[in-house]
């Protein structure tokens, strides 16, 4: 109900909108799907933060009398082969998944963004060297690269994040480089140089903030992908060590029981799907909201 009111007033708001953020928000509000994504995400984040209040059981409490319980009021999503409550494990698992997603993408954005910005801004030889290295990384399938990194570094949460992050650096380097190249030739950069700004100042103050939009979009989409990659790695046993609950690891652990106790694989799977869906629709919405061409 509220929303339809907003849509009617949107145009007026947009003109008054003071900051860019407000403009983005008014445009994002029009995209219902993106809003749904945002709401799901907020719920997920709250779930991760307050996991110990929400989860009815500890994620690692075994109850061998109660193994393979079907979903019931007592165990919302049933119990697994050790009698652990699946709902509690999924709730706790959101912590790991969101952490992996956000930090892995963070690593990729910071390193990839920096490399891309340097390559784009200075062009020439530096550009060639950096981008050819990125091409080499890009030519290896992301999953394969992540597998080899984790295999080399060993299993741990941090290594998992590093692996997923490093393997997606090239994407961000490419995106940032492309936008930096288009931005650095604009007149306001020249005018910044003409008022005596140094290169570093121009990069950080004028160029990078102006190419954030596509990076934000890619990062939002990338978090979904990173969660999926992490889940995939856990699934093949290269991720989080038990008993820490991780959605991918839960999937992999329960796959042997898929015929008899389908719910064991179903719920972690649904959790992954919903999270990635939320990130993707939000990313799509942000892309539209941040597109300068649609700006009025």
């Amino acid at each position, binding site marked *: 109900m509220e929303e339809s009111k907003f849509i009617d007033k949107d145009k007026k708001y947009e003109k008054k909108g*003071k*900051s*860019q953020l407000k403009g983005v928000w008014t445009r994002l509000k029009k995209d219902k799907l993106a809003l749904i994504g945002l709401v799901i995400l907020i719920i997920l984040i709250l779930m991760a933060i307050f996991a110990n209040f929400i989860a009815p059981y500890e994620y690692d409490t075994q109850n061998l009398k109660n193994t393979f319980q079907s979903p019931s009021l007592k165990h919302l999503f049933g119990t697994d082969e050790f009698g652990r409550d699946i709902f509690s494990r999924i709730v706790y698992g959101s912590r790991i998944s969101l952490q992996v997603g956000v930090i892995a993408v963070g690593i990729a954005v910071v390193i990839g963004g920096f490399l891309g910005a340097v390559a784009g801004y200075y062009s020439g030889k530096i550009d060639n060297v950096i981008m050819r290295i990125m091409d080499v990384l890009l030519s290896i399938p992301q999953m394969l690269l992540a597998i080899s990194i984790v295999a080399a570094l060993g299993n741990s949460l941090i290594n998992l994040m590093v692996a997923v992050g490093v393997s997606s650096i090239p994407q961000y380097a490419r995106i940032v480089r492309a936008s930096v190249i288009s931005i650095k030739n*604009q*007149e*306001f950069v*020249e*005018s*910044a*140089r*003409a*008022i*005596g*700004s*140094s290169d570093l100042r121009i990069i950080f*103050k*004028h160029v990078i*903030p*102006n190419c954030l939009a596509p990076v934000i979009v890619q990062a939002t989409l990338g978090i979904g992908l990173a969660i999926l990659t992490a889940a995939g790695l856990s699934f093949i046993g290269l991720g989080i060590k038990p008993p820490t609950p991780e959605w991918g690891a839960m999937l992999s652990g329960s796959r042997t029981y898929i015929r008899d106790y389908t719910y064991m694989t179903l719920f972690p799977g649904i959790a992954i799907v919903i999270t990635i869906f939320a990130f993707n629709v939000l990313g799509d919405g942000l892309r539209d909201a941040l597109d*300068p061409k649609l*700006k009025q």
Partner: protein
Amino acid sequence: MENLLEIKNLSIEYVTDDGINKAVNNLNLKIREGETLGFVGETGAGKTTTALGIMRLVPNPPGKIVGGEIYFEGKDLLKKEEKNLREIRGNKISMIFQDPMTSLNPIITVGKQVEEVIKLHEELSKDELRNKAEKMLDTVGIRKERFDDYPHQFSGGMKQRVVIAMALACNPKLIIADEPTTALDVTIQAQVLELMKELKIKFNTSMLLITHDLGVVAETCDYVSIMYAGSSLEYGDVEKIYNNPLHPYTIGLFNSIPSLDEDKEKLDVIPGTPPDPSNLPTGCRFHPRCSHCMEICQKSLPKSIEVENGHFVSCFLYDKKMKEGK
């Protein structure tokens, strides 16, 4: 009056795969303190390149300053280190760009952008910075309530005012205005020019005004230099040149201005197009289009001759006349 800026034999080239584009060739110029020099020429005559050359902002590669000297306050800018140049840019020499729509950063508020110029060159506290920036915006006629607005909330003319405020913020000695009114409509043009004229007197700055509008020059400049293919063909004070244009190119330019009194179907145009800077004609650069072309014009480059006091022209027509006179 002393020369604030003196350019001697400046040559700038752009090296591309298709050859060397000689954008500026042996250009000589001078601007005294408090004076406005109009820099007139067709598109591609090397006006903007010269301006960028003075700022040492010619994009390199492909651009390169191949020779000459640019003296500013008695020191050669071409021999300065990048660090020292940064102290000059925006502080002593500032530039107003052609298109106000794109010369402001779209995601920083206009107030902050004015503040940034001051911050780069003066050590002031936050409040002082804001005060000074507000005052600057006020001088160009922008209310301080609009300090925190973004460029897209301003009209073209207002944006150009902001750009002017940025250019004047550190009270520079010289302003290079690169076609400051080309992107604006006529009424706003008049306002902006009036404002620039006013502020120039108020702050006692010199100005290099690049334009292809002879009307703008008459309105605002003290001296004028006619550029063609990277060098100055005629230089002198505005009245002398407007009353008594000597170079055939200058005369051609004046003839191609539509007149209100005459009823003409077609304007008198200068035949041909400006030369390709990668393949300049021999001799006088203008000879292929000149109606007074002589044999010598095809062979050698005319020198700059002082025809009357402070009125220079590079053309053999006047060389000969002088000789005959003698």
